[in-house]
C-alpha cells in the first residue's frame, strides 16, 4: 500500500470572507496526516483550478457562505475537467440550501457538507475515496 500523503486544496471562491470553517477543515485534515494547501479568501475559479493543477492535488474542497455557490462551484469543476483533472475528488461546504445539492452533485461534487458537520466525517469521506 502506498504511503503517499493525500494532497488537498481548500479554497474560498468568490468574494466571501468567512473562512473560519475552511481553516478548521484544513487543520483537521492536516492533523489527519494529509498535505493541505489553503488558498486564502477571494479566489476566482480560474485561480483555484490553476492552484489545483500546480499543486497536483487529489482533492479540492470549496467553501462558500455567500450564496454564490451555484455559479462558482460548477466553474471550478468545469475548469478542472478542462485541464484533464477529471480524477480530482471535489467536495464543498457552507450555507447551502439542501435543494441546491443535487445540482452541485451533477456538476461533479461528490459531497456537500452543511453546518454542524463533524470534521471526522470529512476525513473519512476523503480517505474512503482516495487511495
Amino acid at each position, binding site marked *: 500500500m502506498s504511503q503517499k500523503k493525500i494532497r488537498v486544496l481548500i479554497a474560498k471562491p*468568490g*468574494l*466571501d*470572507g*468567512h*473562512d*473560519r470553517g475552511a*481553516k*478548521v477543515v484544513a*487543520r*483537521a485534515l492536516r492533523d489527519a496526516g494529509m498535505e493541505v494547501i489553503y488558498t*486564502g*479568501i*477571494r479566489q*476566482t475559479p480560474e485561480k483555484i483550478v490553476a492552484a489545483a493543477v500546480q499543486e497536483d492535488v487529489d482533492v479540492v474542497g470549496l467553501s462558500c457562505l*455567500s*450564496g*454564490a*455557490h*451555484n*455559479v*462558482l462551484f460548477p466553474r471550478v469543476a468545469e475548469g478542472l475537467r478542462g485541464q484533464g483533472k477529471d480524477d480530482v475528488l471535489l467536495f464543498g461546504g457552507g*450555507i447551502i*440550501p*439542501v435543494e441546491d445539492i443535487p445540482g452541485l452533485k451533477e456538476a461533479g461534487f461528490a459531497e456537500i457538507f*452543511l*453546518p*454542524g458537520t*463533524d*470534521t*471526522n466525517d470529512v476525513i473519512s469521506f476523503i480517505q474512503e475515496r482516495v487511495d
Partner: protein
Amino acid sequence: MGREDIEKRVVAWEQGPVAKTLGRFPERRQRFETTSGIEFKRAFTPLDAPEDAYLDKVGMPGEYPFTRGVQPTMYRGRFWTMRQYAGFGTAEQTNERYKYLLDQGQTGLSVAFDLPTQIGYDSDHELAEGEVGKVGVAIDTLRDMEILFDGIPLDKVSTSMTINAPAAVLLAMYMAVAEQQGVSSDKLRGTIQNDLLKEYFARGTYILPPEPSLKVITDIMAFCKENVPQWNTISISGYHIREAGSSAVQEVAFTLADAIAYVQAAVDAGLDVDEFAGRLSFFFNCHNNLLEEVAKFRAARRLWARIMKERFGAKSPRSMMLRFHTQTAGCSLTAQQPDNNVVRVTIQALAAVLGGTQSLHTNSRDEALCLPTEDSVRIALRTQQIIAHESGVADTIDPLAGSYAVEALTDEIEARAQEYIDKIDAMGGMVRAIEAGFPQNEIADSAFAYQRAVESGDQVVVGVNQFQIEEPMPDELLRVDPAVEKFQREKTAGVKAERDAAAVAGALDALRRTAIDGGNVVPPIFAAVKTYASLGEISDVLRGVYGEYSEGG
C-alpha cells in the same frame, strides 16, 4: 464581618459540606470555565469582589470608568435602539423590508450591502457574478440609494451601514439623498462601520492596504466633525472577530487594539482627541455564556475609559464612553432544529441588555440556513420587545453589578485583555501585529479548540451533538431570485447611459488629484456621487492611487 471571617468560612465550607458531597456525588467536570478559559469557582464570594474597590472600579452609571453604563439613567429613560440588520436583492426589495420593520416598531435602520458593494465593484463587474444582492442589497449609484430610502424621512430615523472599505462613498450617497429630501447633514444620525483593520484578519472586505485605509478613515472623521456632527464615524467591531472563532477575551482585546490604532492615527494626523473620540462607537457579539458576556461588556467599558483617559489624555467624559451596538452570535445558530435558535437568541439578547448595549440586532432562527424570512425576523424583533417590556431587567441599571461572579469575571476579562494589548503594543501596534499574523493565529487556535470540544462532546450543542432528531429540512426559506443580478445590471447600465459623462469624468479626475495630493478625499467623493459616478468607478480611482491589498501579499 471581616475578610478573615469570610476566608475561614469558605475553607470550612470546602472541607465540610462540599467535601462530603463530592465524596458521594462527583461534579459534572473537573474544572468549570468560560469560553475564554476563565475558571468558574464553585461559588464566588465577597473575597472575589471586595466592596472597597467599588468607587474606583465600578462606580455609578454615567460616570467614569463607566463600568455600569454610559448614561446616568440608561433604559429607564429610553430603551436601546432595536435595529435589525437587513438587506437583500435590489434596493426596491430592501426598501419594502425596511418599511415593514419600521411598521413593526423597529426604531432604527441597519443596512446590509452585498459583497460586490462592500468590495467596491459595480454589479456588472466580472467578480460580482453570482454575488449580486445575495448577502445584502446591491448599490451601484446614487439612484439605488434614492430607491433604498424612498419614503423614509432621513431626519427621523438613525441608520447604521455595515460598510467598510467604501464607507466614504456610501456616506456621501446617504448625504446626497438627504439633500434631495431637504434634510441638512447636521440632522443626520447614524453609523458607518468604517473599521478596516478587522477586515484584514476577520472579515475580508478590504480594498486598499492598511496605511491608506487608515488615512481615508481619518479623512472621514475630520469631514464628519465639520459636516455630519451627529454621525458615528466608525464602529470598531469585535463582532466578526468573535464570529471568526475568538474567545470573549480576544474579542475585547483585538477590538480595543484596533481602536487604539485608529485613535493614534487621528492624533498623529493632528486631530484633537476630544474633538473626534466622542463619535467613535463599537460593535460586539453576544454568545450564550450569559455571565461571561455581561462581564465582557462591563470590562470593555472600563478598559476603554482608562485607555482614553490615561493613554490618550482625553478630557471630555464623552471621549471615554464606550458606546456599542450588539448582534447576537450568528455562529451559535444551528441548522439542526432551527426553532431552538429562538431560545439561544433570547439568552444572548438578555446578556446584551444586562451588559448595557445601546442598540441591538437579534438574529433570526433560520440564519444558519439562509437569509431570514419576514416571519423569522418578526420573532427576532419581538424577542427584544419582550425583554424590554415584560422582563423587568431594563427597569434598574446594571442589575448584575455586585454579583460576586460577575464582578470577578469583569476584573479577569479586563486583566486578560490588557495583557493582549500589552503584547500588541510590544509588537509595534495592531497594524504590525496583523502583518505578523498574530490575531489571525490566535483566533484560528480558538476556533479549532472549540470545534474539537464540540466533536469530543465536551461542549454540548443541543440538537447537533446531543438531543438530535430526524427532521425534514424546513421548506420556507428565503431565496434571492437569480434574476436580481440581471435587473440590477440593466438598471445601472441605464443610469450610466443617462448621466452627464463629462461631469462624471471631471469629478473622478478631481478625486484622483486630491488623493494624489494627500488631501481629504471625502469632499470630492461627495461631489462625484452626485454626478451618478458609480461606487466601482470611485473605488477604482482610489485603487489606482493607493494600490490594492491581497491576502498573503
